[in-house]
């Protein structure tokens, strides 16, 4: 009996959005297409996660933002390379402390926070969905190993 549920969600349409030149102008256009602002560094909004100062990860259909990009940026498909895993339950933060070096238990890592951090030597992008759940984007080639690691670790979390 563990306090965390590990749910493999499979792959999803994902694109990396990168803006250049005058990113503010392009960002405005993309935001209009998305219906919300592009999230700030370390944050997510809607189906968009900020990965770096100039890149975002967009989940789902990108037809509308693609049409607005023009020469201000690019969208690159990348969903085939990620397994999505949902960690939920009261101990999901505790589980992320296993084999990691990031403070997943920090209050600053709140809802819609985003971070890419090594867990068991594997670079994983995390998005806090709610106080009860976190979505992990795991490199597909490492997914089997990391799921094993999480499942084993979940059975031995400190009380």
């Amino acid at each position, binding site marked *: 009996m563990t306090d965390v549920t590990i749910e493999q969600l499979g792959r999803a349409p994902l694109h990396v959005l990168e803006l250049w030149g005058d990113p503010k102008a392009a960002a405005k256009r993309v935001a209009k297409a998305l219906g919300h602002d592009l999230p700030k560094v370390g944050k997510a909004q809607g189906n968009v996660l900020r990965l770096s100062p100039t890149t975002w990860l967009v989940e789902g259909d990108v037809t509308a933002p693609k049409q607005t990009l023009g020469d201000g940026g690019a969208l690159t498909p990348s969903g*085939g390379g990620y397994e999505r895993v949902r960690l939920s339950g009261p101990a999901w933060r505790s589980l992320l402390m296993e084999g990691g070096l990031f403070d997943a238990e920090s209050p600053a890592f709140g809802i819609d926070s985003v971070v890419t951090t090594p867990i068991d030597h594997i670079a994983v992008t995390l998005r806090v969905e709610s106080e009860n759940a976190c979505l992990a984007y795991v490199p597909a080639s490492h997914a089997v190993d990391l799921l094993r690691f999480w499942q084993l670790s979940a059975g*031995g979390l400190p009380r």
Partner: protein
Amino acid sequence: MNAATINFTFDGKALRARPGQTLAAALLDNGTKLVGRSFKYHRPRGILSAGVEEPNALVTVGTGGRTEPNTRATDLFVYEGLVATSQNRWPSLSSDLGSALQLVAKALPAGFYYKTFFGPPKLWLFYEKFIRRAAGLGPAPTEIDPDRYATRAAFCDVLVVGSGPAGLIAARDAVHAGKKVILVEQDAKLAPSLLRDPHEIESKPGAAWAEDVAAEIRANGGKVLTRTSASGLWDDQFICLSEKLVEPGQVPANGFTQRYWHVRAGEVVLATGVIERPLTFANNDRPGVMLSQAVRTYVNRFGVVPGQRVVVATTGDDAYLTAQALRDAGAEVVAVLDSRAAPAGQDSGFAVFNSAVPVTAKGGKNGVTALVANLGGTERTFACDLIAMSGGFTPLVHLHMQAGGKLDWDEAAQAFVPGASRWNVRTVGLAAEPAPAETVGATGVAKQAFVDFQNDVTVADLDLAWREGYRSVEHLKRYTTLGMATDQGKTGNMAALDRIARREGMTVPEAGLTTFRPPHTPVSMGALAGLATGEHAQPTRRPALYDLHAAKDPIWLNAGYWKRPRAYPVGAETLAQAGLREARAVRSSVGMCDVSTLAKFEVQGPDAVQYLERVCQTSVGKLAVGRGRYTFMAREDSLVFDDGTVWRLEENRFLLTSSTGGASRMATWLSYVRNHLCADLKVSLVCVQEHYAAIAVAGPKSSAVMAKLTGAESPRHMSVVDARIAGIPAWVMAASFSGERAFEVHFDAAHAEAVWNAIEAEGCTPYGLEAMELLRIEKGHMVVGPDIDGRLTAEELGLGKMVNKAGGWIGASTLHRPAFVDPLRKQFVGLEAIDGGSIPEGSMLVRWIGGEAEGHVTGSGLRVLEGGSIAIGHLKGGHKRHGEELYAYSPTRKQKAKVRVTSPHCYDPAGERYRD
């Protein structure tokens, strides 16, 4: 005390312990004094201490894979079914044949090995068998540990090491200041010093007070970890903790036996306390000679009185508490030997002898029977069965020192205390302010007066090393083994320093200290490995088609972290047979190979060409949409470090591929170029290595297969088209690594199996890396690693004609360095065997056997259809040496082959087979 209800065994003898007792306490409770044999001389040893500093009572615990050797009986809490075994004895602890070494102890001085075992190294292998049997600690387990070890990160504002009163108060203050706190205690109980010396704090019994404070810390969000030792402290308050979830050898309820913590703390408070020092006198290692505070711990905490007639020998006040505890428990305190002059201790109510020191303990393996003492110049013998000694206290400063701290000398305590800290680390409690004590030096026969009990180092050994010129403490440590191994000099180092200082005529601080290295207390290797054991010792990357391959039961190859099929044997085929069959299928018909692990990068944007022409040594801008080309990349020094293909998918959209093995390096390099060298370019760079699966389809029938699968004419060589295979969108790129007409199909990895199955259904033979090697070596295609090893220029690799003459690529400015025109630089060549036989891979290229190496073989194979050994390699001035005959010679494998230098392209040099 509770009744003894816990069953355990020691050397097979069934015994019982009371709840909460350590193994040491339980053994004493059962009247067992002889617990182990010493490392070198096999001297009988008992229990010296009551904590992790124990050098004598080392036992092996557990059975099978849970066996743990060298566990301190004083740091092991007894559990039901505990199996403990003594070490370093044969045939039994009581009758140990190794103890005969005591008779020849004079012939085994410090540096014995260095002085004795001269001769050829091979002789060491002979000596080793005897040395290992005669000396050493417990044997390592031979079975696999069935338990798991967790590795965990933690963050806090304040981490407190040690739960004595000073540590508890520091932690409580911190939580009340709103800090996030972790408090760690290596004992199973909080504030063990309050169990040894019960007294009230804040109007509560000490133990209850400690529990209340811990509860207060927890209630305010703090974390309290018992059975947890801080094993190392590094820069920026990074500290590692080793937590025992169950006792050594015990079966864990949830499979986890230990947890290793990586903690990043804002501040570290060290409340580590002190270790009592032994006195140095003859036979001070006999069973029944114990540290004073340890005796008090056994009496007051564990309800065990280790002796009934006791002599207390001390250099300070603390031991009088022991005398009182013994008297309260009903033991007779025969005498207190106080090294200090009168009137020290005279008002204690005991028979105190001032200016008195112990000289020789009498007795044997079953305990002491008497103590000969020097009472201010006259000797007197006291009959006793226990000697409780106190030679002062050594503050535990190891963590402070590991983190780069300085030490100060406390003259009153005759001890090093923490000085300035490099990081936000402070020490509180007794570790900062040890009790006053004096140093009395060694007494009795030096050869029998032990300084380092665990490593059998005596005062005589120190003196010998000093006489032989070992003045530096570091040298002396290594020569004598002082403070080595699991002991780390906890009880012995200060006595040794005192001895050296006296010989040198200097003070202890002038004598210096050895380096404090983590861990101070042993950490299980399993804790460091965590869950990364066995087949999970390193990450395994599985390509999208892994399950499909696995169903074919291939011979796997670990290519870096990737798991890739090397060959798909049919029936009883060997690797070589399967590889050759698969390669021949490609040469004669059509084969298919999973090449998903190739590095792949999408490059988009109006400045994509400009970016790629910085990265690639070939031109890119001239490519029409729908066309691709072979390319290669150089570092700033103009030496080629990777190669691949670049495809123009749209006007401003490219796919760049490069080697599997160099994928991570290439991703870092491209990102560096993008963000630092080309920061102003309007370009997007995304690694899509895992997004796209890729399958190579190769062979004379491949074009027909692709046409059937896509329903369209196959693209011509080095062209790319959009297509659908099994309904899945894909790029079909006409490119060949095998030398045959061939295609690479790239598509969303989520659909990998559907595409593979559709292609295989067209009669394609799956081939693995073994066949790929044969094919590409015959064709003279290079791979990154052996062929492109980062030491040759494009010209030397035979790629000079493809270099973008307009320059602009990284490394262009250094291409014409004078060193590159040296005619003896190595160049890429082909080789063919002249007299049959295979060409040893990795062998040297020499003009005659024994001659100077002029190159080496980077890849060895054979002509796939015709037979005959061929190879590729690097050879000095090789481009102008075609036709020359050499030897490929491997002295390590004792293999050789006579070879002729050729062009690397042994198969279809004109490239006619690429085209339909």
